[in-house]
């Protein structure tokens, strides 16, 4: 029963009734309603409990500034807490719940907090819960979180989808009230590309709520004509349900569009869309937000902002009460009594604190038969869960008026928030008792109410406002910030305790925090503080407004970039082939790489890896190494450039030969390593580690463009252009010979040489005789499109595929450092590569690599480890402690960086960084892992476990 809905009028669609639920009760509203309007139409005025005192709360406003009417919308994983009922659009099946109440909205046990309010005053956390310290985390915090809070998060992954979009325009108009629409009409005629954005689902702003005239015609008539004109303009893009939430540098604006929050979820349609709008100019037509007045019980359900009362009457044809009192210090009083009377609501009185009320107001009140109480205030509103009466003060002290609705207005604050996002401070204007935008972000101008220009043409404010920040003599709790339960005495307490700066006031009392960010409370709070400290409001200033203007779901900021779409997944050209071979994959940076290729009878990773290792050591295996970064460097000065970026010399490399290269950072630590092939006198092709591919390229560009711009060369990343496989093992040459007619004999293609060849297929290829495994080995590079074909050919020729795990065992057996050892804290000498640093040339990192601390012989350097007991396993990360010493940091001599079971040697092996390094060969340590409570006795051994002479490489 919509018993509080007027029989006609309003901008709702009475032909489309909508069923929804509130706290499980099924109710009905109309299309065009907000949830708040529909609740009021059903006579529901108690909608929530307050944050700290659990006081009954109703609906204060009719817009995004709402501090009280916060509800949980939707159910299950889609549940969204703290949504404002005043902007939530009604749709069929909408499920809303009140929040922060226990056990029920009407009877809340925790409202006892109100009786304990001396304890819960500002700063109570800091004073009350100080001792004992151990209690904070286990007892106090959970207790406070249960008692004080807003809605509940679902705790489940967000089931909705979100979109992101960028748009460019010549001008962005923020707000489609009368000022924004007038600006849009003007811009539409110029042909500029315009975006007009408004948070509401309908254009018009206050024109939808107030019975105004524009240029002599009813505002709604003007609105309809204007909207038709704008919608017909080709250069106009209109975004409704879109809140501009922030202004960023360079004319960049963020906008949140609620694409389907106003209807049941639909597959394939995002819930919300985050817009990035780039526009050199913008018009700030964000309107103004009404201020509450501060008196006792100003939060009782039934006390509403006067402008909101008019919105519910005019726009939604809802009667927010049956018997009203109006309390206003400005012209809103006149507008409100007129609309109340027109809606058939009895008005018990207009309470106006101005001693001299304008004659026109008297005439109006007389004609409406509304008594005026001039020079009067309201001291106290009473009623518990619903307003029953108000007690007057000032010139009308002693009078009590019965009412169930109190419409209040303390004046209007221009919505200056966005104007401050670049640091511009709002400027106080005494004549309108409000802040207006100060220094604007570049390209932004304010218009209409946002600029402090209230009213419409020919319908301006007629009487001056009398600022009234706090009613003197008020009794009972007088709230400044409804959402945070901050009262006028809390502000006074902050002043007494020295928190007089506005930013301190905010932190100490929480005034202006949480989801509404003080939209209805900031100015009132700082005005009270100004009066208490004998400063002007201008001197007191505002807190800093930062984006977002209204809350933005994290999901909207993430957009579609979540789960597997968080970052790109890179697959090598032979990925599908490897998948068909049954490979198991692991994420390695952005890449998916095969870890191993299990055979049907193998049940553990170790079984597969041991088989793959033996295949390489005894026959031949091949491994996809496409992910290594590849950079092509060409030009007359390419050799000189590589001499500069590598620690060892590259200019002496002969064409057709390959050399291992080591790079340092400028601070002297190791940066990256790889191979450098000289394909021609002025043409080099080098590899980087998989992880550093992008970083090395950037470093090269920096070294060339900034440090050595005089060098003549070109740098190009070619990682994606080539598929590359390592073919390793005693049979490698035999297998390679099956793939090509080229001469691949030891004489034609010796160790560390490279040739171009054509593989059967035919496939153009580059062959590099280089080895990471320590076996006779080749790396074969073919254009990426041939990658899968080459893998198939290698398998066909008799090589066994192996994965990353086997690659790791093979390199560990050879003592090669990789990422775990090239960890940014190791020097070339730490890794046993100190001799590679050229003494004959300048190179990146040379100077600082010579720092005494980096040359200290006691630095942790790389050694090999083996367990003393043959069957013992080793764990990476274990720390090395001498025998007989307690396991303390002081006795820590180093740690294990990499471990593997060596099928070749039949026991576990490890690399470790140990103080003093190789000179401690033969020493015994305890390898301790306190996290897993393991301990293994280990011995320091030579770093190269397999074929230390490297004989296999040269066959």
């Amino acid at each position, binding site marked *: 029963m919509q018993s509080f809905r007027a029989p006609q009028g309003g901008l709702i669609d009475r032909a489309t009734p909508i069923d929804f639920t509130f706290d499980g009760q099924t109710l009905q509203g109309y299309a065009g309603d907000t949830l708040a309007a529909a609740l009021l139409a059903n006579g529901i005025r108690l909608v929530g409990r307050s944050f700290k005192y659990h006081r009954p709360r109703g609906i204060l406003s009719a817009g995004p500034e709402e501090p009280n009417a916060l509800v949980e919308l939707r159910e299950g994983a889609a549940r969204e807490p703290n949504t404002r009922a005043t902007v939530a659009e009604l749709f069929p099946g909408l499920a809303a719940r009140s929040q922060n109440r226990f056990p029920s909205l009407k009877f809340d046990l925790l409202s006892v907090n109100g009786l304990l309010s001396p304890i819960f005053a500002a700063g109570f956390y800091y004073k009350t819960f100080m001792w004992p310290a151990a209690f904070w985390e286990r007892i106090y915090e959970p207790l406070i979180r249960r008692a004080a809070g807003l809605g509940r998060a679902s705790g489940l992954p967000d089931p909705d989808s979100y979109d992101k979009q960028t748009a460019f325009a010549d001008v962005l108009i923020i707000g489609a009230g009368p000022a924004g629409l007038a600006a849009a009409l003007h811009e539409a005629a110029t042909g500029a590309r315009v975006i007009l954005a408004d948070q509401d689902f309908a254009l018009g702003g206050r024109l939808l709520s107030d019975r105004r005239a524009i240029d002599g015609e009813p505002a709604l008539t003007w609105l309809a004509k204007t909207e038709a004109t704008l919608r017909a303009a080709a250069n106009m893009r209109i975004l409704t349900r879109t809140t501009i939430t922030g202004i960023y540098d360079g004319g960049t604006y963020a906008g949140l569009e609620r694409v389907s929050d106003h209807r049941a979820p639909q597959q394939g349609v995002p819930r919300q869309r985050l817009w990035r709008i780039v526009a050199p100019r913008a018009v700030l037509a964000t309107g103004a937000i009404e201020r509450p007045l501060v008196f006792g019980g100003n939060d009782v359900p039934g006390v509403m902002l006067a402008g909101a009362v008019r919105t519910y009457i005019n726009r939604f044809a809802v009667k927010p009460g049956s018997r009203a009192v109006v309390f206003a210090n400005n012209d809103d009083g006149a507008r409100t009594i007129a609309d109340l009377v027109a809606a058939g609501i009895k008005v018990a009185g207009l309470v106006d604190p101005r001693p001299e009320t304008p004659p026109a107001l008297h005439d109006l009140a007389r004609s409406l038969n509304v008594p005026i109480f001039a020079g009067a205030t309201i001291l106290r509103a009473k009623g518990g869960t619903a307003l029953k009466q108000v007690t007057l003060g000032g010139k009308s002290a002693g009078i009590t008026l019965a009412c169930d609705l109190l419409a209040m207005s303390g004046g209007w604050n221009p919505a200056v928030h966005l104007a401050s996002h670049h640091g511009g401070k709002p400027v106080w204007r005494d004549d309108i008792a409000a802040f207006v935008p100060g220094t604007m972000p570049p390209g932004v101008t304010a218009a209409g109410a946002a600029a402090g220009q209230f009213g419409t043409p020919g319908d301006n404010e007629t009487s001056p406002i009398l600022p009234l920040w706090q009613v003197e003599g008020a009794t009972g709790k007088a709230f400044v910030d409804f959402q945070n339960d901050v009262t006028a005495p809390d502000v006074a307490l902050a002043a007494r305790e020295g928190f007089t700066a506005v930013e301190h006031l905010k932190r100490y009392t929480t005034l202006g925090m949480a989801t509404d960010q003080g939209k209805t409370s900031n100015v009132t709070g700082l005005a009270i503080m100004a009066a208490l400290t004998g400063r002007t409001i201008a001197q007191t200033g505002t807190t800093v407004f930062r984006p977002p203007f209204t809350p933005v779901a994290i999901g909207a900021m993430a957009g579609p970039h979540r789960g597997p779409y968080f970052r790109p997944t890179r697959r090598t050209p032979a990925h599908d082939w490897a998948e068909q071979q049954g490979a198991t994959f692991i994420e390695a940076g952005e890449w998916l790489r095969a870890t191993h290729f299990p055979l049907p009878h193998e049940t553990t990773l170790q079984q597969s890896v041991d088989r793959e290792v033996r295949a390489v050591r005894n026959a031949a295996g091949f491994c996809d190494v496409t992910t290594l970064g590849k950079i092509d460097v060409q030009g007359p000065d390419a050799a000189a450039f590589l001499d500069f970026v590598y620690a060892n010399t590259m200019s002496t490399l002969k064409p057709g030969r390959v050399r291992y290269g080591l790079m340092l950072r400028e601070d002297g630590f190791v940066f990256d390593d790889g191979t450098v092939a000289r394909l021609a006198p002025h043409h080099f092709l080098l590899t980087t580690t998989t992880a550093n591919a992008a970083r090395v390229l950037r470093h090269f560009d920096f070294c060339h463009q900034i440090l050595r711009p005089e060098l003549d060369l070109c740098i190009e990343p070619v990682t994606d252009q080539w598929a590359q496989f390592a073919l390793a093992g005693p049979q490698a040459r035999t297998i390679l010979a099956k793939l090509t007619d080229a001469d691949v004999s030891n004489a034609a293609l010796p160790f560390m040489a490279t040739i171009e060849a054509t593989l059967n297929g035919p496939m153009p290829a580059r062959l590099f005789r280089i080895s990471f495994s320590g076996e006779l080995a080749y790396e074969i590079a073919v254009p990426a499109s041939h990658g899968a074909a080459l893998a198939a050919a290698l398998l066909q020729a008799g090589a066994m595929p192996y994965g990353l795990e086997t690659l790791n065992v093979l390199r560990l057996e050879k003592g090669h450092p990789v990422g775990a050892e090239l960890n940014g804290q190791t020097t070339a000498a730490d890794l046993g590569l100190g001799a590679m640093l050229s003494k004959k040339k300048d190179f990146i990192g040379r100077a*600082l690599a010579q720092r005494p601390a980096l040359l200290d012989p006691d630095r942790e350097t790389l050694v090999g480890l083996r367990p003393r007991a043959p069957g013992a396993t080793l764990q990476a990360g274990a720390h090395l402690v001498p025998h007989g010493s307690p396991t303390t940091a002081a006795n820590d001599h180093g740690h294990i960086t990499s471990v593997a079971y060596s099928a070749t040697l039949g026991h576990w092996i490890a690399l470790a960084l140990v103080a003093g390094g190789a000179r401690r060969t033969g020493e015994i340590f305890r390898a301790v892992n306190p996290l897993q409570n393991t301990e293994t006795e280990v011995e320091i051994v030579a770093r190269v476990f397999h074929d230390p002479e490297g004989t296999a490489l040269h066959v």
Partner: protein
Amino acid sequence: MRLSCPCCGPRGIEEFSYFGDATLARPAAGAPPEDWVDYVYIRNNPAGPHSELWYHQSACRQFLRVERNTLTHEILSVSAA
């Protein structure tokens, strides 16, 4: 924030990466260690105009010399470094 790349035109900040002070000069090969420490580790943190390097990583790979006011984020000039 947006930067106007001399090669690519105005682009969003996410295409660029920051490389710090553009006025640093790498010391000569035989310079004393103090010069190297200054070059590698010591940075001014000016409040106001700052000359800095940005790298157009996601597009043309050009290093840019950007004059930026660190207080207002105003971009005063952009040129190829």
